[in-house]
């Protein structure tokens, strides 16, 4: 099937919308000026002007674009736009994001004299705020955390306006905004303020792989009471709370409600969710990559503990070297550069889908030890494909819906967008008894042909 459908002229953008977009562009320009200006005072002025313009412009644009229209799915011209349909704007955005991550990870370290490479001006512009929050000067990671949190909050507000017809989406979006701001930004900062270890209570091993490494555990324990609690918290969340919560709610309790990576994907990544590849070939790559990564981090963690328990004699430095390479290849290149840099081309969940060992672990639990499933409503599916389109994890949801089968997939993060987008009310996220969890509808004769 190859109908000749030429890209139509898009509806005119209203002058008010153009103005807000111009304000955002002005903010980006101010950011460049902050980078270029030699005067520290003016750097700071440019920097905060930039944040103000970008924030104000984004909020005003979101309201005009989504808040002013009747509540409902607003996906008109999604695939036609250059920004969301892999057009020129998307490629430029992807290049800029990728470039930012490369500079951040490998060219912005402290050179020993408080100089942070090309991002130096931006880092120092945050010194005042960092002193106030963390009682220490800013570094490149504080700059990154600030940008990250701001992106989740601003684009989260956009998502709140866009999906305001669905209470599930409202509450879930508010949840990721809350956890990012509180648990991934303010609390770690305050811990530093009180001279405690910087600790993220919402990141767990194996995603935050070093939290169960002997080195981290030792240094936390040596820190005393709070450090011991942190070790306890990390262990309990990884090994006890994760299986229990996943049993009751599926992996969504973490991936699309709490996790920072998920938080960015659900907010800043929302315009790109449909770009996830739905093909069987993509699913095969997913399985080939994500489970080996889980195995690798299990082995590395094991090696490190053996190394530690045997008094560093048995295996030499193998564990440490492996951990270092893992940190580079998976922690930096995969989760950062590819994970976020490729948003506009491959969708918002590249890391979560292909790389995250926590997602692999949660996925195995969800598939085999959970009450969660997405129910399909009898025979009402019309195979329109809107559910598959909005699935950021690249699940071809309609394959299940059109057979009347419940969707039970390891990768499903439970964002609920398939249910929100379905024009016929066919899909529903449900937690229920495990008996009959795979039971399809009696109202469609399943064709029993393989779909994966």
């Amino acid at each position: 099937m190859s109908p000749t459908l030429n890209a139509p002229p898009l509806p005119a953008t209203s002058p008010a919308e153009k103005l807000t977009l111009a304000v955002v562009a002005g903010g980006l320009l101010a950011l460049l000026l902050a980078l270029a200006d030699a005067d520290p005072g003016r750097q700071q002025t440019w920097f905060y002007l930039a944040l103000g313009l970008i924030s104000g412009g984004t909020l005003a644009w979101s309201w005009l674009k989504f808040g002013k229209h009747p509540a409902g799915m607003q996906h008109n011209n999604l695939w036609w736009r250059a920004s969301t349909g892999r057009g020129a704007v998307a490629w430029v955005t992807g290049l800029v994001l990728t470039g930012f991550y490369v500079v951040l990870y490998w060219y912005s370290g402290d050179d020993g004299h408080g100089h942070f490479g090309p991002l130096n001006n931006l880092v120092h512009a945050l010194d005042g705020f960092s002193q106030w929050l963390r009682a220490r000067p800013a570094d490149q990671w504080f700059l990154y955390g600030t940008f990250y949190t701001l992106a989740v909050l601003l684009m989260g507000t956009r998502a709140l306006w866009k999906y305001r017809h669905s209470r599930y989406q409202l509450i879930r979006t508010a949840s990721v905004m809350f956890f990012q701001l509180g648990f991934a930004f303010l609390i770690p900062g305050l811990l530093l303020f009180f001279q405690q270890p910087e600790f993220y209570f919402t990141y767990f091993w194996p995603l935050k792989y070093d939290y169960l490494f002997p080195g981290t555990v030792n240094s936390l324990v040596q820190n005393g009471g709070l450090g011991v609690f942190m070790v306890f918290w990390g262990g309990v969340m990884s090994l006890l709370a994760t299986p229990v919560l996943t049993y009751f709610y599926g992996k969504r309790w973490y991936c699309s409600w709490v996790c920072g990576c998920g938080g960015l994907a659900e907010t800043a990544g929302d315009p790109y969710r449909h770009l996830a590849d739905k093909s069987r070939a993509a699913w095969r790559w997913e399985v080939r990559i994500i489970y080996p990564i889980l195995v690798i981090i299990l082995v590395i963690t094991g090696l490190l503990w053996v190394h530690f328990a045997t008094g560093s004699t048995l295996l030499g430095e193998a564990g440490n070297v492996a951990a270092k390479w893992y940190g580079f290849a998976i922690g930096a290149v995969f989760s950062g550069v590819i994970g976020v840099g490729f948003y506009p081309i491959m969708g918002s969940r590249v890391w979560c889908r292909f790389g995250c060992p926590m997602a692999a672990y949660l996925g195995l639990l969800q598939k085999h030890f959970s009450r969660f499933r997405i129910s399909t409503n009898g025979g009402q599916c019309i195979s329109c494909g809107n559910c598959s389109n909005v699935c950021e994890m690249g699940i071809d949801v309609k394959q299940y819906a059109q057979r009347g089968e419940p969707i039970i997939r390891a990768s499903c993060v439970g964002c609920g967008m398939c249910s929100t987008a379905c024009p016929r009310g066919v899909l529903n996220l449900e937690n229920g008894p495990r008996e009959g969890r795979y039971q399809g509808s009696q109202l469609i004769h399943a064709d029993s042909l393989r779909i994966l």
Partner: protein
Amino acid sequence: MHLVIIGNGITGVSCALTVRRLRPEARITLVSSESAHHYSRTALMYVYMGHLRPQDIKPYEDWFWKENHLELVHATATALNTSKKLIALANGTTLAYDQLLLATGSESKRHGWPGQDLAGVQGLYHLPDLEAMTRDTHGISRGVVVGGGLIGVELAEMLHSRGIEPTVLVRDAHYWASVLPPEEANLVDRQFEENRVPVRYRTELREILGDAQGRVRAVVTTAGEEIPCQWVGLAIGVSPNLTLAKTSEIDTDRGILVDEYLRTNVPNVYAAGDCAQHRQPAAGEVAIEQLWYTGRMQGEAVAHTICGQPTPYRRGVWFNSAKFFNLEYQTYGQAPASPIAGLESFYWEHPSGRAALRVYFRAEAPHAVVGFNALGLRLRHDVCEHWIRQQAPVATVMSHLGAANFDPEFFPQHEKAMVTAFNQQFPQQPVALKQRKGLFSLIKK
């Protein structure tokens, strides 16, 4: 056995998949003039609106056909010789069959209006229509949609998505009057209003006016109004596509005539879906059904008969669904648009005008429930079907409404308000809500 299926729509494909399941060794060939692969006709609007790409509306990936040994022929079947069991294709080849299913679908209806053949006048049924609409609405500012049914509102929504102002002409006093009671139609009308789509009720098309180039420039309504526009969508229904059937001795009327097993008058030739006309439709059913769901069910039924397990087509408890701009609609069972003897209905509407429920039940005790209309609410198909089949009394249904609630988590639950309204409308049958949705239903049990 070589089964040849003419048409790769939902009916033909459902039959092919079912035969593949029942007869793993059968040779199955699907012939389509329209597209190389099966696609979802109901999703054409989403491609136009840019929600989806053309490849996204294929229900199965391309490998699926080869791996399941389903042969696809992308060509027009031009002639049928049932005595030799041969089909001639437009590409010059012929296909021999043992069993033949005609699932040739529909064509858009035209009414014989003056000007209906002008450029920029069309229906919306298949891919060529989508291509034409994409071409002919490129850069225009106004369109007119004729018809107050499902395709009418779809066309209006499609134009609206591109900033083209549609005007909708509806023959009846309210929207989809043959199916929706006035209250429900009123909620749909609110959607038109909210999206600033003007609708002219009790208004029909009289004439389409063209310009010097033979393109549409305006329509004239039966009210005498001239509405300037550059495109006209005709959405007054479809009629069976009989082109191929008429090249043979197969009996046709408005559609291809079939018995309850979907057999035509010629042995080994069957017809199903939009193109089939039942010789003796069951009581309360129509002879020609033109729905995605009935197409799928007919395809499944005829597959059993083809495989030597004669299975009469039974529609079962009726269901249908649609979406009008942002308002979802589901219906189950018998849900007539206007009051009929022996049936009563309970109607509840949320003050926002974005949600409503109607429950139809028999006037005589024990007031068995026969049907539902839901707008802006999602109902559980299997629960509604079960109630209707079991002839559950309306009091039972009302007190267990929570069991049928299929709305997503955290959505407002209206069962309490519905039961209160029911008790006001039918004080002689007092009802207490016993089952709510989710956790509450566990506590209350």
